[in-house]
């Protein structure tokens, strides 16, 4: 019998379709090759990207020259730009404003390595530090309200043809809908229970164990109860905090270990699938006093990893209901057993 399960945070129903369940080996990853001599993100080709905003590089190296460890550059085709005004206006019954914001690319390594799973833990720690630094810097711009950190790996995830490990940051002048839904859902839960819904979720998962993928020093990786996609994985900090930037240096090292473990399990177990990940963190909380009220208590930052193994089709677009052909308990069991 198929099951309907409800996401406890935003109230989205998913169908766990046991009748059409597929075994892990029936999902196919596939990897195309690319021409690495044309990659604009490799060391020595700094002139092929816009000038860097941020870099981790030794003191004796020069900006926009070789010798770096990690670089952040503006997107070459940004959808949102930092220059200009928002200019909110109406057009009949429609609302419009200018595309103000920021769009940055984090080049995670100077080597032509495609999958973050293949970077060292030390290098991943640098990437995680950089996210924090960039979010803190973007927060200084009063026009911006939210920063989404995300990664598109592989063509099927919208990651393009260049196979050089990178992630992106987009800062938006309004709080995005998906984020608002999570904020509203966790606030509602908090109002009633006076507890964080994510903390409760972690407690239940640790007690039930069947959806745990990995657990390590302050972090837990789970297959969410109401997963939308096969092998969807969330990484949550056990220590409550609404904001990613509150992580200390040790915690970021531990997170790097968990992230590398999960990404390597996906790579090994599923034949290097395309994936997206996103970091959901609290918006900048600098508006009207009292506006955010309990957000420090009620929201809990986390990472969502979504392997792209099945196509999102008409049904999902139309309803917002997802059909997940693999129960998350099986996702977790399979990934727990993959040795990395």
């Amino acid at each position, binding site marked *: 019998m198929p099951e309907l399960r409800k996401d406890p945070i935003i109230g989205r129903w998913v169908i766990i379709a046991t009748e059409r369940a597929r075994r892990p080996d029936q999902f196919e990853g596939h990897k195309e090759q690319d021409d690495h001599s044309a990659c604009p993100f490799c060391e020595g080709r700094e002139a092929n990207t816009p000038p860097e905003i941020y870099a981790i590089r030794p003191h004796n190296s020069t900006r926009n020259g070789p010798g770096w460890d990690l670089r952040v550059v503006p997107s070459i085709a940004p959808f949102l730009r930092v220059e200009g005004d928002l200019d909110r206006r109406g057009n009949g019954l429609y609302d419009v404003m*200018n*595309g103000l914001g920021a769009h940055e690319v984090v080049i995670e390594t100077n080597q032509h390595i495609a999958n973050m799973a293949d970077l060292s833990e030390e290098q991943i720690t640098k990437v995680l530090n950089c996210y924090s630094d960039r979010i803190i810097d973007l927060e200084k711009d009063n026009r911006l309200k939210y920063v989404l950190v995300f990664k598109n790996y592989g063509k099927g995830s919208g990651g393009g043809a260049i196979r050089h490990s990178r992630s992106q940051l987009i800062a*938006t002048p309004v709080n995005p809908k998906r984020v608002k839904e999570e904020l509203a859902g966790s606030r509602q839960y908090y109002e009633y229970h006076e507890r964080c819904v994510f903390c409760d979720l972690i407690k239940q998962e640790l007690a039930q164990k069947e959806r745990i993928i990995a657990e390590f020093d302050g972090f837990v990786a789970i297959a969410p109860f109401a997963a939308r996609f096969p092998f969807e994985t969330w990484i949550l900090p056990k220590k409550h905090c609404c904001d990613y930037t509150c992580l200390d240096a040790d915690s970021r090292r531990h997170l790097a270990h968990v992230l590398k473990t999960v990404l390597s399990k996906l790579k090994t177990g599923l034949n290097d699938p395309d994936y997206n990940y996103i970091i959901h963190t609290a918006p900048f909380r600098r508006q009207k006093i009292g506006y955010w009220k309990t957000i420090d208590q009620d929201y809990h930052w986390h990472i969502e990893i979504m392997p792209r193994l099945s196509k999102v089709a008409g049904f999902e677009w139309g*309803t*917002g209901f997802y059909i997940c052909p693999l129960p998350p308990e099986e996702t977790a069991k399979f990934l727990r057993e993959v040795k990395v």
Partner: protein
Amino acid sequence: MAELRRDPVVSRWVIVDTEHPSKPEDFEYEQYIPAGGLCPFCYGNEFMTPPEISCFRDPSTGANTPGWQVRVVANKFPALQIEGELDRRGLGIYDMSNGIGAHEVLVESPYHNKDIPELLNGEIESYLKMCCVRAADLKRDSRFKYIMVFRNYGPAAGASLEHPHTQLVALPMVPKNALEEIHGSRDYYNYRERCIFCDIIRQEVSDKARVILENKYFISFCPFVSRFPFEIMIMPKQHSGYFCHMSGDEISALAQIMKDTLGKLKKVFENLSYNYIIHSAPINGEADVEYYHWHIEIMPKLTQVAGFEWGTGFYLDPTSPELAAQYLKAVKE
């Protein structure tokens, strides 16, 4: 500078690239060329599907044999199961229920290689009529709260079989996207005492910039807040909550506008995969049809939805709907 536009119904923001818009030739999309082969939906293979639930066929032919025009069968791999009780229950902080619902497949025509633009008007009318018949029938089951009609055409749109088909799913709860539209249109109605979709049609007709086609009963246009390049909306001009209440004349008009609109889209993008979905009001007391207005959303598969969209619910549209409408209008039939 790009523009941010807000959907007036569900309040979703979309980033429209008005500065360096992508033209049709800029899209590299997965080409869909049917390969043929053994097909459970072709004449003579009726035994390969579950038995038919409903069918328009030559009266001299028997059930589950050739001679039909439109055929509806249960999905062989249903996402939901029709028998049983919902049995809502909690599991710690989680909520769940049994997967009760209906999942039907509607084979649109006997032709393996004919998409809607290649069918005759009468054939499309039979197909649409059958969608109405099935929706009206499923509506009678009081366990169901919503009926979703959708079509995946081509592998990039998630179709696993080539033979063109549409699916119907009856759900025991109103899905999130439908709820958002209903809440948005209800709020608008409470304030203005008008249907927001009727207002959208009025504004589109007077703006003209996004309209593709219009006939007596229907209008097709690229929505002001398109999530995807070349997204298209088809709406009935008369206010109506349920598509299955269409009259015969309206069905003919819809067949015509679908054939022409999809024909234009497929001339601009050959071998395109696309989805469309019919948004209709919830059933069995879940909404008031005063403020909801049924419509069809067509989503061409030209781009990939990536991390940013998943993370934020923001969409990036590289081609403004005004430009998309221009290209579509310019196609000669």
